[in-house]
C-alpha cells in the first residue's frame, strides 16, 4: 500500500514535470514567433540611430551575421539547441550574453518582488480576517473605505510623494538604488532601500486581494458548519482562524499562484520610480527594442515561476483539502 502510494507520487510528479516542460516549449514558440512577427527592426537596437545611414548591403550583411535572415523555424531550432546547452544568445541592445544582462539584476527583483508578494498576502489575510470578525461594524466599514481609496492611488504618484516626504524632507530612506555603492552584501542597507518601493507595491496590490479574501471569508461564515462550531462553544476568532480560514486557504493559495506575475510585474513601477535596478524595467525595454534573446529569457523566467507556483498550489491544496485530489474523472463523468 505504501509502496503503491510512493510510485503514485513519483508518477504524479513525473507527469507534472513533463507538463511543465511542455508548457515551457509552447511558451517559447509562441513568444518567439510573436516577437519576430511584431513590426520593428532589431537592428535598430543593435546599431541605434546608425541604422539610418547604413546601405542595404550593409544591413543585409549585418542581418546574416546576427542570424536574422534565416527562416523562422530554422532560427527557432537554433535558439532551442543553444538554449538547451545553456546559451541564451546575445542581447542585441547590451551587446553581451543575455544571461549576463539578467543575472546581476534578477536577484534584486526577486528579493523585492518576493518580499512584497509575501507581505501583500500576509497583510491581506490579516485585514480580511479583521473585517470578517467585525463584519458590518464601523471597523469593517472604515477598513473597506480606506482600502478602496488607497487601492486607487496611482502607484507612480504615490512613489514620488513618498520620495518627497521620506527621502527629501525627512531623509529617512534613500530615494533610489538597491544598495549604496560597495554595500551589496549589507542586509540592513538593502532593507533601507527596499522600504519605499515595498510600500508602493503593497499599497497598489493589497486591497484587491484583501477584499477578495474578505468576501470569501464572509461566504464561508454563512455556512452551516459555523453553527456547529458556535454550538461547541468556540469563540469568533477560533471559528474564523481554525475553520473558515482553513476552508478559504485553497482559494488563497490558488490566487497566490496565479497572481505571481501580477505582483512581480508590480516591481516595474517601483523600479522605474525608485530607479531600482531590476528586471522589471528590463522586460519592457527588451520588448520595446526587439531584443529577442533578452525578451525570451525574461518571459521564460516569468513563465517558469507561474507554472511552478501553480503546481505548488495544487499540491498544497490537496494537503489542505483531500477532496481536491485529481481523480482522473471530470465532474461530468461522475
Amino acid at each position, binding site marked *: 500500500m505504501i509502496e503503491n502510494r510512493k510510485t503514485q507520487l513519483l508518477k504524479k510528479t513525473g507527469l507534472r514535470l513533463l507538463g511543465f516542460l511542455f508548457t515551457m516549449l509552447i511558451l517559447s514558440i509562441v513568444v518567439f514567433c510573436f516577437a519576430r512577427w511584431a513590426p520593428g527592426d532589431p537592428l535598430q537596437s543593435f546599431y541605434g540611430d546608425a541604422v539610418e545611414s547604413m546601405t542595404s548591403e550593409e544591413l543585409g550583411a549585418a542581418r546574416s551575421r546576427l542570424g536574422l535572415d534565416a527562416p523562422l523555424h530554422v532560427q527557432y531550432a537554433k535558439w532551442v539547441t543553444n538554449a538547451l546547452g545553456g546559451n541564451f544568445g546575445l542581447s542585441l541592445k547590451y551587446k553581451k550574453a543575455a544571461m549576463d544582462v539578467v543575472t546581476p539584476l534578477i536577484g534584486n527583483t526577486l528579493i523585492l518582488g518576493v518580499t512584497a508578494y509575501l507581505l501583500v498576502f500576509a497583510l491581506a489575510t490579516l485585514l480580511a480576517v479583521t473585517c470578517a470578525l467585525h463584519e458590518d461594524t464601523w471597523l469593517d466599514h472604515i477598513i473597506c473605505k480606506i482600502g478602496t481609496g488607497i487601492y486607487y492611488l496611482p502607484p507612480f504618484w504615490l512613489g514620488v510623494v513618498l520620495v518627497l516626504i521620506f527621502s527629501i524632507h525627512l531623509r529617512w530612506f534613500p530615494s533610489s538604488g538597491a544598495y549604496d555603492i560597495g554595500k551589496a552584501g549589507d542586509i540592513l542597507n538593502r532593507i533601507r532601500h527596499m522600504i519605499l518601493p515595498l510600500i508602493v507595491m503593497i499599497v497598489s496590490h493589497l486591497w484587491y486581494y484583501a477584499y477578495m479574501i474578505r468576501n470569501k471569508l464572509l461566504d464561508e461564515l454563512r*455556512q*452551516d*458548519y459555523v*453553527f*456547529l*462550531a*458556535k*454550538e*461547541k*462553544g*468556540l*469563540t469568533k476568532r477560533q471559528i474564523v482562524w*481554525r*475553520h473558515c480560514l*482553513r*476552508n478559504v486557504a485553497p482559494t488563497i493559495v490558488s490566487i497566490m499562484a496565479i497572481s505571481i506575475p501580477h505582483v512581480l510585474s508590480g516591481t516595474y513601477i517601483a523600479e522605474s520610480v525608485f530607479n531600482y535596478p531590476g528586471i522589471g524595467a528590463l522586460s519592457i525595454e527588451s520588448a520595446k527594442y526587439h531584443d529577442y534573446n533578452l525578451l525570451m529569457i525574461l518571459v521564460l523566467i516569468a513563465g517558469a515561476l507561474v507554472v511552478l507556483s501553480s503546481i505548488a498550489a495544487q499540491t498544497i491544496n490537496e494537503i*489542505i*483539502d*483531500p*477532496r481536491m485530489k485529481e481523480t482522473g474523472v471530470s465532474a461530468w463523468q461522475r
Partner: protein
Amino acid sequence: MGTILEVKNYSLSFDTPEGEIEAVRDVNFSLNEGEILAIVGESGCGKTVLCKSLLKLLPRNARVKSGKAELCGENITAFSERRMRQLRGKQISMVFQDPLTTLNPTIPIGKQITESIRQHQKISHNKAKAHALELLELVGIDHAADRFNLQPHFFSGGMRQRCVLAIALASHPKVLLADEPTTALDVTVQAKMLDLLLSIRKRTGIAILFVSHDLGVVARIADRVAVMYAGKIVEIGTANEIFYDSRHPYTWGLLGAQPALAMKTGELHSIPGMPPVLLNPPPGDTFAVRNKYALAIDYEEAPPMFQISPTHFAATWLLDPRAPHIDPPIFTKRRREE
C-alpha cells in the same frame, strides 16, 4: 424529576426593513431531567428559531421581546456572549437538521470532536482522543480508531449525523436540542437514529428537546409533545394525550395529515391554506382562517390556554364552556376507542 429547562412567556422578534416579524410568541414550556419533549409544527412555525434563540445563535436582528429561559434555575436569556460560550456544548448543545453541511468538510472527524472536548475541559490531546473514540462508539460508529482521521465526505449521511451527535455530547451536556435530526435521513436510518437517541437518553440521563414536523417520528420517541403554530404553542400534553385525546383543531389537522393514520380511515387529510406571515399578525387566533371549527371570537381575541388535565393544555376557544360542542374528527375518535 426536576425541571432543567424552563421557558416562560418567551417572545422573539426579528427586526426587518419591512417591520417586525414575531417569530416566537409567548411560549411556555418546561423540560424535565431525562425527558424527551417534542415540538411539532409546520415549516416556518418557529421551532428552529426557538432552539437557536435558546443558544443565542440567531443573527443580530433577532431580539427577545419578553420572557426568559431558565437553565437549571439560571436566566440564560440575560447571559452575555461570553457566558453563553461557556454554556454551549457544556450545558446545552444542539444537533442540526442537515448532517451533510453541519460538519466542516476539510477537518477530520476526530479533530472536530476533540476540539469540542478541549474547548471545555483542560485535558491532554491523548486523553481527548480517547474520549472522542468512546463517544464515536457511543453513537454507534464502528472502527472508530480507523475512521478518526477521515474527513466528513468519507461518511454517509447517517454516520455524519452520528458524528454531529458525538460532538454535541462531547462535554456531557444536560440538555440536547435536536432540530429535526432525522429529517434529512432516509427512513431506515431514521429509525436507527431514534433508537440511538433513546439509548443515549437511557445511559446518560440527558434531557432532549426534539423538534420535528413528523408526528410519526415524534410518536416513537417523545414523552411529551408541544404543538406549535405561528410561533405559539397551541397544545401541549403527554404523548398519549396528544395522540389519543387531542383538543386543538390544528392538532387534529396534523394528525389527519399522517399517512399512517390515513391508512386506517382511508382518507388523507390536509390542512387548507398556508401558515400566516408573522409580519403584523392579525388579531385573534392566527389559525382561525384555516380552521373549519372557527368561532366568531377566534377572529377577535386569541384564546388562552385551557387546562384539560394536570399535564394537558390547549389554546382553543372550543374548550370554553360557552362554546358549542364539537365532535373531534373521526380518526381521533377511532384512536380513542382502540
